[in-house]
């Protein structure tokens, strides 16, 4: 079981606002899952090279060319945002 403070700290890092009930529930849930992860401690991994991907692909690139389906595409994408100004996304102040 994680402490309420630990859950609150993780939630803040993850940018998720939690209710008090959720904090209680996640203390238990996250605790039991992390406990399950302990099975990996059985393995001595000091000599193993980690593998980050299933395929050994490298340096796949394409031409960096701007593209748009039509002249309105940019406008359509902007219209999906809750607030815009002069063609930019508008956000609340940081402080």
């Amino acid at each position: 079981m994680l402490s309420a403070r630990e859950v609150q700290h993780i939630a803040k890092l993850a940018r998720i606002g939690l209710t008090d009930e959720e904090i209680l529930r996640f203390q238990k849930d996250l605790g039991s899952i992390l406990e399950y992860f302990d099975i990996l401690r059985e393995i001595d991994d000091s000599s193993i090279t980690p593998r980050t991907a299933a395929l050994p692909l490298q340096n796949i690139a394409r031409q960096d060319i701007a593209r748009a389906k039509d002249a309105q595409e940019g406008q359509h994408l902007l219209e999906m945002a809750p607030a815009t100004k002069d063609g930019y996304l508008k956000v609340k102040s940081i402080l």
Partner: protein
Amino acid sequence: MIKELHKKLIAKEISAKEIAESFLARISKIDGELKAFITQTPELAIEMAKVVDAKIANGEKISLLAGIPCAIKDSILMEDIRCTAGSKILEDYIAPYDATVVKKLRQNDAVFIGKTNTDEFSMGASTENSAFGVTKNPHDTTRVAGGSSGGSAACVAADEAVVALGADTGGSIRLPAAFCGVVGLKPTYGTVSRHGLIAMASSLDQVGPLAATAEDAEIVFQAICGKDEFDATALEYHYESLQDFDLKNLRIGVPKEFFGEGLMPAIEQRLKALLQKLEDAGAKIQEISLPHAKYALAAYYILNTSEISANLARFDGIRYGASITRDSKLEIGNLLDVYLRTRGQYLGAEVKRRIMLGTYALSAGYYDAYYLKAQKIRALLKHDFTDAFSKVDVIMGPPSPFLPFKIGERAQDPLAMYLVDLYTVPVNLAGLPAISVPAGQVDNLPVGLQIIGKALQENMLFAVAKDLEKLI
């Protein structure tokens, strides 16, 4: 089924519009209870069917998939159609472009009948985590259809669609296919473009087909695979069916780790009986070992949640999707407040749980113990499979440790739900292809058989699956 419909279309015994209408009528009749679909697209389907009929009338050559009713998992974008990924945060999101797989099906004149239910952002094994209701199992409506691509499996099983697209990150195609008694392929990582698939865990996600028969799944796979400049991991790949396949030359490996503790005895008996039939037909069966399989689930959930914590950062209430700033009645403080309250309000419990687990695993001081360790397990597993495939052509085992469970039975315990993925996740970690095919029934519920192949050997899986259909 695709080839039969195709013949009838060409012979003008039936029109594409008539096919579409009959499937749409079936959806109207049963989907209120089944809930395989989140969004139905009847007008679009009729419009697309008419295009096919016009081509036939003009004497144009049509593709095998032309006029075939096809359902798409609601985590895959279809231009101008709502795409929710099963989440409240995308409840009103209209896709601005086609996923590459959708574009390819469109080029083949497949007929799109709707978007299917999924666990929220594909996180789950039962569709119980969908914000839009639970998909019922067509074989027993008190039970789950499996997940996350549960809607895609159920709609094929219930004859609401001929074929469907799903996506598989840790079993999300194979498990619902097994639970609903249909065929589902998780292709080799990189054979199918992920462009336009709403990402869960990018190093594991792969789009694939669900269908009633191996042949139908093969036709869809052939249509959707191949290189894509919009997905850097999509390989140069051209599918060709395996010619001169003979079951008598097939070497089948059966991992002892997949038949151990945890597997329901009746499923084990059913699969052993099937393996016996394969042996009687001439295939050579040998026990193999995947020594690190027991660590796969833990490694998978560390990598899965770590990638989720990064991928889902985009749902921030600023660019698209639901946002508390859209509600003019609310008092909102600063930017942090927008993030916390938007994500707090519109993401479901399992999504929050996984984002937090991943955030924890990647946070300072824990990286080596979790993320790096899991990547090392991935290397060990890959090695296990390489060893096994030096002795055998395919590996067979269960896709699920148990039968379709009752709705609500596992919903309260996240770890119990994760254990459903026990036999499917090793395949994703190794990037291999695997297919789940119907293997008969236990207690009147479908049982699947999982066949795992070497990388890029989807044609071997389909060849084996087609022969197996004749044995069952």
